């Protein structure tokens, strides 16, 4: 639907604003390495979707908070100038659930998102099996 201006939006539309597609991830707050929590596999799919996990697996992720996930979180935190903890802290989750562009942040296993700010090119490291990425 297209709305010409803010006043044309029905009040109910504002009151019943659709929950974010990824609000579900808020329940993963506080998870850290070694945990097994239902929903972590979906978070891995999210990170795979945006290039942070480059494994060739086609969605068969486990709910384990493993090295692959921790590595993905660290790279994500660097890219979004968050404190790099490797954990699912509140600031990281607030960023993850925001609506966003569907293009990947990490392409072909490396990320230049921070390149303009003097960071070194961030290679995908420990645990992130570098096999191939999907070319659109």
């Amino acid at each position: 639907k297209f709305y010409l201006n803010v006043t044309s939006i029905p009040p109910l539309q504002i009151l019943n604003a659709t929950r974010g597609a990824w609000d579900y991830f808020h329940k993963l707050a506080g998870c850290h390495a070694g945990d097994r929590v239902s929903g972590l596999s979906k978070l891995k799919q999210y990170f795979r979707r945006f290039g942070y996990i480059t494994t060739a697996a086609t969605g068969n992720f486990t709910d384990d908070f493993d090295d692959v996930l921790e590595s993905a979180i660290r790279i994500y935190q660097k890219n979004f100038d968050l404190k790099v903890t490797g954990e699912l802290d509140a600031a990281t989750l607030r960023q993850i659930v925001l609506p966003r562009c569907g293009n990947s942040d990490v392409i072909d296993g490396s990320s230049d998102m921070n390149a303009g700010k003097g960071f070194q090119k961030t290679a995908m490291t420990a645990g992130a099996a570098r096999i191939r990425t999907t070319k659109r």
Partner: protein
Amino acid sequence: YSFFPGKPRWPARKRDLIYAFVPQNNLTEDVKRVFSRAFDRWANVTPLRFTRSGSLLRADIVIGFFSGDHGDGEPFDGAMGTLAHASSPPTGMFHLDGDEDWLISDGGGENRRILSVTSLVDLESVAVHEIGHLLGLGHSSVKDAIMYPTIAGGDRKVELAKDDIEGIQHLYGGNPDGTASSENSSRGRETSGGAE
């Protein structure tokens, strides 16, 4: 700013790019004007020019709204979530999620919060971002940059930031007819030059 691997860009012979809308969307002029404004923002700071065409055959860039799986391997996910995606040069595919609620007002040139809580997405903000991809820019870590990957519902962010301008001018150079450059735009003021 960042680029796609290999730094693809439109070739030097292609400085006048033609865009067209998927006819099945039956978009109104109000909607099409939003894209025109978004293209202008990039034209103001580059030697590139953008012209709308009614013919897909002539178009370098094709714009369409789609829902769910639309055949490019990157299905949309309903309201919110992913809002749009675009290809790197010289492919020219620009897809937007047809399940979003889009605001198409001419909200002015300034970045601002339109509503405090809403699932409404400012179309021009997303269009300016995706055109950056179509021209060769990747995502940026600079929060004020257009090429920052996320945008909150109800936010309007349409002003090119210094980071965006530096990135695009690295690929194409500045606008020979204008004065806009990264030097005179500290953090994305409305840039002058070109038609303005």
